[in-house]
């Protein structure tokens, strides 16, 4: 009981839990290591995301509109795009299957776009006939340059009903 009397005599800070020097230093160290670790993870992620890429341009010229007959589907292999011309105009459809990224093929005799990898089938306007592809083939923005050539921008996906009249 003598102990109690002694501690009662000492000035006690009220309302605050007591933190020992050891606990304080442990928490500070762990906190600093945590922050450093988090920062390291962020820096590593940034390091592994390239800022400059040497990849092919996503915008390309597809030549004079006169090259494409009315009611035709033309596969541009280098760009992996179909240029489709109907009676009402032009549109550009991606040739990359929406399932796992294989390059589809235009089957003239069957009038459809087919994927050799897993058998997905699409109409010439990109609409899905059968899977396993989850989505229709996207349409890319297509327009005319000042000197009258078709130009496609593969970064810009447009709605399927937007058709370029020439």
């Amino acid at each position, binding site marked *: 009981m003598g102990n109690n009397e002694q501690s009662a005599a000492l000035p006690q800070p009220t309302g605050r839990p007591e933190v020992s020097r050891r606990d304080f230093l442990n928490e500070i160290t762990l906190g600093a290591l945590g922050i450093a670790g988090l920062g390291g993870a962020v820096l590593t992620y940034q390091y*592994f*995301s*390239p800022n400059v*890429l*040497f990849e092919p341009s996503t915008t390309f010229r597809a030549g004079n509109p006169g090259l494409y007959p009315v009611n035709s589907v033309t596969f541009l292999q280098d760009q992996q795009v179909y240029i489709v011309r109907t009676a009402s105009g032009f549109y550009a459809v991606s040739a990359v299957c929406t399932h796992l*990224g294989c390059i589809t093929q235009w089957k003239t005799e069957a009038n459809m776009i087919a994927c050799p990898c897993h058998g997905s089938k699409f109409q010439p306007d990109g609409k899905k006939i059968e899977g396993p592809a989850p989505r229709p083939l996207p349409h890319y923005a297509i327009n005319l340059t000042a000197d009258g050539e078709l130009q496609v921008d593969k970064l810009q996906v447009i709605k399927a009903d937007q058709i370029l009249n020439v």
Partner: protein
Amino acid sequence: MATSILTALETLRTTRVWKSIFRRGPAITNRTRSVAVFGNLFLHWLPVKVREKSLRVRAAYYLGSLTLLLFIILVVTGVLLMFYYHPAAPKAYQDMKDLRFVVSNGVFLRNMHRVGAHLMVLLVFWHMFHVFYRGGYKPPHEFNWVVGVILLLLTLFLSYTGYLLPWDQLAFWAVTVGTNIISAMPLIGNKVRFVALGGHIVGENALLRFYVLHVVILPLLALLFIGVHFWRVQKDGGLTTGSKDDDGQN
């Protein structure tokens, strides 16, 4: 002649050089033999004594040891292939062709690496099924089962990263399809794919990344977990042996 060689070996074991390397004198008693195994880095995870039945072929078909042997073969042949291979497009494809048609014995090493890799995947699965059907995942082996699952994943990642390195059509499309599967992950899929490939398409960055993963990071991780795996087999009390073995004998 034979006796003189044996005598020479006996004398060698008493020399100071032998003792300094193996830290022991001649292993004559059971105790000195055991101590020689405990005190050796390369032997210490082996059991000093084993049950006779766990050495029978049927107890394990040696599937784990055979997988380790294949891993060693793949490391040796892989390092040899690295002397001729540049992880750059289109040089990688030409180097692969050179290894097949120009380099002496290159086709042998390349095929050994390729067939060995296929066999290793097969053996890892076979080993896993065998352990599973014997109940080898049950206590006290649960931890080692998880280590084994990690090793299975590492083997598959090694196989997949190696698949891109020939830089042919098969490699390109396999990795295109595989990394598109990554991008199906919700929210972070496209970002993970971008970092894994180092770009939007399977190009030079992807080839280099897969190469570094294939020849440095994944083999080191595999080696670490293989060490833990073999060590834990002994620490958990050796191979799983049922009260009766497959052939009905104890």
